[in-house]
């Protein structure tokens, strides 16, 4: 599916390497390319959640990016070498 003309970048998701098109958001990479089922356990009710809007409205896409927790990952563009972690423990800052 990936257009060969599209440049890619390498990131890691929960420690696993992932190659995705450059210019897309972290949330789109994790959901549309890595197909992670969910991206966090909700801090209030502990349920599994995943990005809903992909445009900065819902705050369901919070992940740890380069060590910083609770980042709205749909508003961050993937960068070469970026480390992304899903927030699965249910704690929140």
């Amino acid at each position, binding site marked *: 599916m990936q257009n060969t003309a599209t440049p890619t970048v390498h990131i890691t998701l929960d420690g696993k390497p992932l190659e995705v098109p450059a210019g897309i958001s972290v949330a789109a*990479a994790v959901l549309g390319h890595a197909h992670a089922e969910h991206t966090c356990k909700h801090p209030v009710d502990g349920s599994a959640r995943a990005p809903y809007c*992909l445009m900065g409205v819902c705050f369901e896409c919070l992940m740890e990016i380069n060590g910083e927790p609770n980042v709205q990952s749909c508003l961050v563009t993937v960068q070469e070498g970026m480390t992304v972690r899903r927030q699965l423990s249910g704690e929140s800052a």
Partner: protein
Amino acid sequence: MDRNTDLIVIGAGPAGLSAACAARACGLEVTLIDEQAAPGGQLFRNIETPMAQAILDPKDRETGLALVNRFRSCGATYYPCATVWGLEPHKVSCTINGKAESFSASYIVIAPGGMERPVPFPGWTLPGVMGAGGADILLRSGGTLSAERGTPVVLAGNGPLLILLACHLLNAGVNIAAWLDTGTWGRRLQSGALMPAGILDAAYLGKGLGMACRILKNRVPIIRGVTGIRAEGTDHVEKVLYEAGGKTHEIATRTLLRHEGIIPRTHILNSLGARHAWDTVQRYWYPVTDEFGHTSVDSVYIAGDGTYVHGGDASLLKGTLAGIEIARRLGVISNDEAHYRCAPALRALRRTRIARGFLRYAFAPNPAIFDLPDDTLVCRCECVTAGDIRKAVAEGFLDVNEVKRVTRCGMGQCQGRMCGPALAELTAAAQAKSPAAVGTLQVRQPFRPVTLENYCDLNIPK
């Protein structure tokens, strides 16, 4: 850093870009701040990449690329990847690359665009349930909705955008198991009440929707008169239940996409206390402005779908008008010159408005979509249910801000962006009133999360 300029534009979608270009063409000094990494907004997202171009129809691609190229060479100062979290009449506070920055200007144009109307239903927090717009963004990011090709997708809702999304999905080889139609537009289209005005805009209706409807015909099972949508599963949607024709039905799926039309993003303007009005047909708040997007806050303009949802081509016109009008008010161009420059855009915008009047009715949201069972999680952040809201109203809390205070609905990270419309509908319905009569959620600044350090950098005098 604090820089002063003639005009700050917030947002790099069609409206923001055209406002910046128009103002620059009049000779203004312009700074444009946007949250995305590249210009285009939602409509022309990632348009400079072949991946995103592939999904747009040729005319949109051409318009979008021309606009972005014009913007890139117009001489505006451009700050992508910026999180704007504070706004005062002449001042914008934001974070860029982890640093707090503030900008000041004589005028500000906000171009926040629209967003999908968030409509809760039981199970809507399950992974695998998404807004249709979100799904479209995944496709335009070169991604797919599920790991295996061919896994069926269920669409639910109403609105022209859902038709276009369905086409994108079919083009991408996605198998659409069903379209659960919650609208009442079929009948309205037949009645053709406002069709003559629609003809004025034949290009839009003819090419866009007409073609889309033909593509969908016979390829997507459309189920009309659907109510009671519910997603079920453990940690992920596994099936969708709905009612139609007096019976409950069930479809197995791992992806459910909901869409109930587009509403203006009013969050930032609300935080300034700008005046808004309620649209009784489309059931949303929109800012009160003149034809140039001048809000009730003197130095603040708004452009694009954020003023009222007319679509991308209208957003271009609205941006142009705001940019020229501000140049006129600054005295950089004369009244005559402004009049001359605005005339074509004003004419085209008036024509579009009349034409879109038809869509306003044809795709009006069905108020019944807010008839939610008590166990529906309305506030995704604070986990507040429809029942909690009704209970608060029964206890005598009648305004949305009071209900928010006692239930915490709207107090979470998204600040009511996702639950606000449903909170208003439920609070109003429980009192047999219109949502227009129960107030609007007060939005406090900062309207996006900001580190204490960044906030203090700009707000505590050193």
